């Protein structure tokens, strides 16, 4: 039997299944740093942070932003559960830049406010990175 080279990768949000494909390599943003998954990985349950999810299939590459959630690996199946995803083509650089400015200007009355502010800033920064790296490629 030929060696298995790919594993199933699904990205699910509460609203729909965003992606279901055979991937060669996936890098997802865990809560404490980036996590890479190759075929035959040991079972894992992990909390996600805010960042870019990169999926490499045999002849394609997907990049999207995930905004917290969970990842599960079992039996060569990777499931990404997240509450929202965003693709480069959905985002507008000017709008993202604006939201970053707004996030920076957020008032911090207490600890919860501080957490909300840093999350909003992080979110905007990730979106900006997504637009800058991926948006330009699509236009070209």
């Amino acid at each position, binding site marked *: 039997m030929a060696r298995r080279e790919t594993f199933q990768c*699904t990205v*699910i*949000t*509460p*609203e*729909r*299944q965003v992606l279901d494909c055979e991937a060669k390599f996936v890098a997802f943003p*865990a*809560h*404490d740093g980036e996590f890479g998954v190759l075929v035959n990985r*040991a*079972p*894992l*349950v*992990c*909390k996600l942070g805010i960042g870019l999810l990169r999926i490499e299939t045999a002849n394609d590459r997907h990049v999207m932003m995930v905004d917290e*959630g*969970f990842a*599960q690996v*079992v039996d060569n199946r990777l*499931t990404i*559960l997240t*509450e*929202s995803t965003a693709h480069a083509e959905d985002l507008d650089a000017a709008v993202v830049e604006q939201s970053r400015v707004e996030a920076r200007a957020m008032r911090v009355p207490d600890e919860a406010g501080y957490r909300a502010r840093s999350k909003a800033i992080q979110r905007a920064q990730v979106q900006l990175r997504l637009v800058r790296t991926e948006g330009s490629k699509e236009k070209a």
Partner: protein
Amino acid sequence: MANRKVLLKRRKTARNICKITRTMQLIATARFQAAFKRAMGTKPYVEKLAELVANLSESAEGVDHPLLQTQPNVKRSSLLILTSMRGLCGGYNANVLRAAAAHLDEQSAHGIDTDVHMIGKKGIAFFQFLKRPMAKQTAQVSDAPSFEDVEPIANEWMDRLTRGEIATVHVAYMRFVSAGQQRAEVMQLLPLACDVDSGSKKAETSRRVEYEFSPAPEALLNELLPATVRVRLFQCFTEAVVSEQIARMVAMKAATDAATDMIKSLTRRYNRARQTYITMELLDIVGGANALE
């Protein structure tokens, strides 16, 4: 003569109404299919989340999360009522509101104050008519509820629950059982207690997998439970929309059928009146001719 004209006029009215209700039925059918697809879209997420919770509660012994605790001394609870923005959907709103009112009466019999958060214009109008208090009202309901709209509602309740302001949160909505069956139901959203137990039972039957957890299972569970609450509430919203469209479809189908029947009987009556008139006229002419002879 006058009778025939009246019948014609009535038949025209019935025809117009029939056209309108048939169109509404078709629109409801189209909307139902879209809503149904969306509602089914949440399924994989819900199932996966339940699976994760089950896996984790096995690994994390003695789960003690504020969202799971019942607080018998807190005499305050919340009720979210999901009704529609538009009418003409048969008993949809009436059934939900009846279930909600029964729940409210039961709660007050136990000496528990309930804050009502009413969603949908129809429910607001009904409660205003009954002069029942509502803590919060949202008139607008979207046909396609988005997760971002629902999330803050769930978060607010979880905050209030952990602060000990409210003991329970219930949601009154029309549950979508199947395309042929919907049930008005009051579901307990918080605390989550019963749900985790059933989840872990399911996990026992499936084979055990030794997972690597990051962070520790307890910490993960703390994140998973709020996510479960959020998605459950979201599911209520999507299911309510599907049920509403089904109710409207059924109501409009009944209205179209009734209008078709009415057109039929009016046509029959009109024809009979016309014949009677002709016969009468003939008799008049014949009678006149006979009189001349």
